[in-house]
């Protein structure tokens, strides 16, 4: 089986690219707790290392670890390492993470799975939340695209789409973990996304509960990200900061809630970048930031009225314009 990096060119996922830049902006605020160069970044670099490049350039993080399960393709990963500060760790995240001495350093981790929600992801959440030093940042991305059922002619193989999707989900995560009230739903993209969000949230809470024991100096988690976007499959990203009592004031100063993409509930921030020409982008940028007030069938902002785009595209662009990638053909 080939890896997802062999199927998709990571550089050409505009929504993911936007998400990454938004994250970087939020992560910059961690400097209220500690110098960013004291942080360590842990991710799944794949051979593109897009997140590693961005966080090294933008945040100045110099200690970076890329976890990679395909030891067999070691040569290709090593060849593509963009900066010397990146260390490769080969193996499965569920046994690699516990050995990283997460308690000795503040970590920013991005568990950027390509897979659909699976049991090992909860192990990884547990390993991270049980150990990581207060002041760390946690991000997880999971594929929440609904399952597609192949039509069958064999009578006894016929089951409803609802049962088919539920069985698929239970195969991966078990019955125990799935909240009872969700067991009767048709696990379409929206519902699988909600269920995944809920299970991640519960695992974080349970792991922190065991970690805190009877201790009064409890470690807390504050959710900051809840993104969904679709480049090809729908992806859910949840993230936030892990902190203790002494850091509470610093977290408040970070004012995450002021970020346009801040999402601290089950309601996600949807990233939907429209496909635009450079001419359109230039024209839109001239009007932004600015009012998007839309009454009696038109934008109140005169500059926007002259752009021949549908209002939804304009609104979606306005949400992401500061992070919008410029893709063009180039001879590098």
């Amino acid at each position, binding site marked *: 089986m080939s890896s997802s990096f062999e199927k998709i060119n990571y550089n050409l996922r505009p929504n993911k690219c936007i998400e990454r830049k938004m994250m970087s902006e939020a992560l910059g605020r961690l400097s209220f707790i500690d110098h960013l160069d004291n942080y360590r970044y842990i991710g799944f670099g794949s051979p593109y290392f897009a997140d590693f490049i961005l966080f090294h350039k933008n945040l100045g993080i110099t200690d970076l670890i890329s976890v990679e399960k395909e*030891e067999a393709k070691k040569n290709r990963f090593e060849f593509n390492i963009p900066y010397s500060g990146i260390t490769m760790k080969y193996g499965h995240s569920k046994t690699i993470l516990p050995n990283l001495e997460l308690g000795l350093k503040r970590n920013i981790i991005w568990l950027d799975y390509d897979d659909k929600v699976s049991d090992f992801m*909860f192990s990884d959440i*547990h390993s991270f939340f049980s150990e990581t030093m207060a002041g760390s940042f946690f991000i997880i991305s999971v594929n929440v695209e609904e399952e597609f059922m192949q039509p069958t002619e064999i009578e006894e193989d016929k089951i409803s789409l609802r049962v088919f999707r539920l069985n698929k989900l239970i195969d991966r*995560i078990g019955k125990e973990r799935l909240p009872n009230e969700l067991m009767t739903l048709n696990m379409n993209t929206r519902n699988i996304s909600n269920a995944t969000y809920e299970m991640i949230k519960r695992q974080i809470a349970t792991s922190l509960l*065991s970690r805190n024991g*009877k201790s009064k100096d409890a470690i807390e988690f504050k959710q900051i990200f809840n993104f969904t976007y679709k480049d090809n499959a729908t992806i859910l990203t949840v993230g936030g900061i892990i902190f203790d009592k002494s850091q509470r004031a610093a977290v408040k100063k970070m004012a995450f809630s002021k970020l346009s993409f801040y999402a601290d509930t089950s309601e996600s921030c949807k990233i939907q970048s429209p496909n635009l020409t450079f001419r359109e982008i230039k024209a839109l940028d001239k009007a932004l930031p600015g009012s998007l007030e839309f009454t009696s069938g038109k934008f109140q902002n005169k500059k926007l009225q002259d752009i021949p785009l549908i209002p939804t595209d304009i609104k979606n662009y306005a949400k992401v314009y500061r992070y919008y990638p410029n893709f063009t053909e180039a001879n590098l």
Partner: protein
Amino acid sequence: MGTQAKNQNPNRVAADPAKSFFVSMLVKDITLRDAIGDLVDNAVDAIKARANGTADLKEYEIEIKLGKSYFSITDNGFGMEAEVARNTAFNFGKSDKHELIDNSIGQFGIGMKRAFFKLGSQIKVKSIAANSQFELTIDVPKWLKEPKRWEFEFDENTLDEKTKNSPSKTGFTVHITNLSFDSKISFDNDTFVTTLQKEIELEHMLNISKGLKIKIGEYTLKPNQITLVNDDNIRPTYWEKIENGQSVKVLAGISTKDSEDGGWYIFCNDRLILAKNKNEETVWTGSKGDGVPFWHAQYFRFRGYVFFEAVDSAKLPWNTTKTGMDMDSPYYKEVRSKMIIMTRQVMDLLEKLKEERERDNPEENQTLNKAVEKSLKATVSVTKILANVKPLNNKFHYPVVLFNPQKKTNSVKIAYQVSNEKYEAVKQNLGVDTPKEVGMETFNYYYDNEI
């Protein structure tokens, strides 16, 4: 209370315990084996109290005799002062004024009396303590006939509270006759006795390895060594939490011996509560649970050891029968969460060892397996490792650079079925002997001519 009280106050509702019901309920909750275990625990407490924190228990001895008509247990611990017997030790349940021995494993509250009743109905206790000595007999049938009397009596002319006994003379003996039916048939059964010996040997392995002599029948229990690999190549992962009056130390790594010994071991104040555990009470919940995958043959070298210590034994996260952990205790939840992570740390090696052995990887290429095998030849006792934990940290060290799995090959395997007749015809025509050769030749023929 009783009838008289009821007459005095019409609002009063009788709730007197019926002695015989009370006794039968008490003994139903405990096995014979655990009843004897409770008496051993009490003896160990008395010995440790006399040893007063010294690690060497060579002078101390517990002797158990199991006969067809009697049971006895004798120890040379610090005995029981008459004052303690008079006010607390024989109470049912722990009174508020009851002070436990530091770092104890017995919890006088109920264990000793429950064990007595389980074993038989004529109980004779003899104690020689530093400042007093006494004998006490419990005739259970007679005691049951006096429903209101919740007390026992020292035997006539045995109580002496003016004496001064030297430490070498102190001790405690329980001698039980009129054995219960369960006791009688079990003590006559060699399998029961052997199992008892083996289990107490495990439960008290730490005390036995400190020199404590425990004799059951004619057999003296042997020290069981718990070990781990700890050398330049492989170092166990270690975690500790030390608080006022209590501590926990956790070690995990690999060791040899047979796979039966693999799993987690949990000690509370040196008493083994869980041995070789391979289920969800420790970490093995299956990958869909909150722990690690179910125990599997590839983990047979895994060893994890937990040592809970508490001055006040009520703070230990065990259950009241000392047969398992209190799964709801926040303290145990916290430690268990660590145990899960430490198991994953060691699994990183165990899974790589398995991967290296896969896909017909020639033995000489299995460099990580070879290094581990070499280290396994010299394991170290856990007591020794605990004596110097400085070089350890919460990370499992192993020579990851030696990991050398067989690379995935660039070839494809084709399989298909044909009728016997056609196969024989092609085989003869090609002049080869095996289906494999037929497959290769026919494929090559197509490739050479068509591609």
